[in-house]
């Protein structure tokens, strides 16, 4: 991420924290959006640090963090990975050969 983007992110975090004091609903939306950024490896260091500090103080968000992590894990680990049919690669290569 560019330095200017990081600065903007920090400004956004500060602004959101200031706003959230008077608007709990916005705070919840922001936490969920930040949670997804962290879960997907897209958050900045600052966002991750702020969020983890917040998790220690907020039980509902901690629960939500555990739930979202569990959902992502079952998607990655529980869904069956299909084996490629034996003839598929051979068929593709045979058709490619005919293209020449």
């Amino acid at each position, binding site marked *: 991420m560019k330095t200017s983007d990081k600065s903007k992110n920090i400004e956004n975090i500060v602004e959101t924290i200031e706003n959230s004091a008077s608007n709990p609903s916005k705070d*919840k*939306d922001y936490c969920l959006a930040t949670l997804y950024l962290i879960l997907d490896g897209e958050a900045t260091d600052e966002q991750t640090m702020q969020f983890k500090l917040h998790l220690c103080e907020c039980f509902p968000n901690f629960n939500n963090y555990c739930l979202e992590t569990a959902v992502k894990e079952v998607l990655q680990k529980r869904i069956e990975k299909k084996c490629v049919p034996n003839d598929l690669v051979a068929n593709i290569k045979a058709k490619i050969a005919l293209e020449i």
Partner: protein
Amino acid sequence: MSEELNIEYLEKDKHRVFNEEFMPYIDAMYNFAFRLTTDEDDAKDLVQDTYMKAFRFINSFQKGTNGKAWLFRILKNSFINDFRKKSKEPNKVDYQEIEGFYNSEDADVDVVATHDLRTESVRDLIGDEVANALNALAVDFRIVIILCDIEGFTYEEMAKILDIPIGTVRSRLHRARILLKDTLKVYAKTMGYTQK
């Protein structure tokens, strides 16, 4: 995107690039196709069609760039534009409703709606139940979950594959996850994994 550059490969180089840059992703491509079509024969046809298109348009692929994302984009477009039309009418998703999601009051309602899905219940689910919940989503939502959570693409790569802005990727993913949790909750309840 890099595929807009045209490179004239020699015939022998075409094969080398094809084998080195595209064939290693055949497993991921077949599984992506299967999760879209939910049928093994259809998945085979879709992958074959995708690889044929990749070979025909190989001059627009720059060697060393993201071959996996390039193939996923071709497969997704083939599925949406050609393949799905043959089998049924596409599922319509109301994007206007979704795009403004972060600012809407509905966001809060959705969080509450999935609140009683417990982490322990999710961990008790077996693969078939998770796969069925995923398949129950409209295809546009299913695609973002597959790309992000199963295939591990970044938001930027997803934006290129889907040809939409990153903000739209995030809002679509956000909505898809809420819908998936709702479906998982139903499965968990049916299987007796929850107290409710």
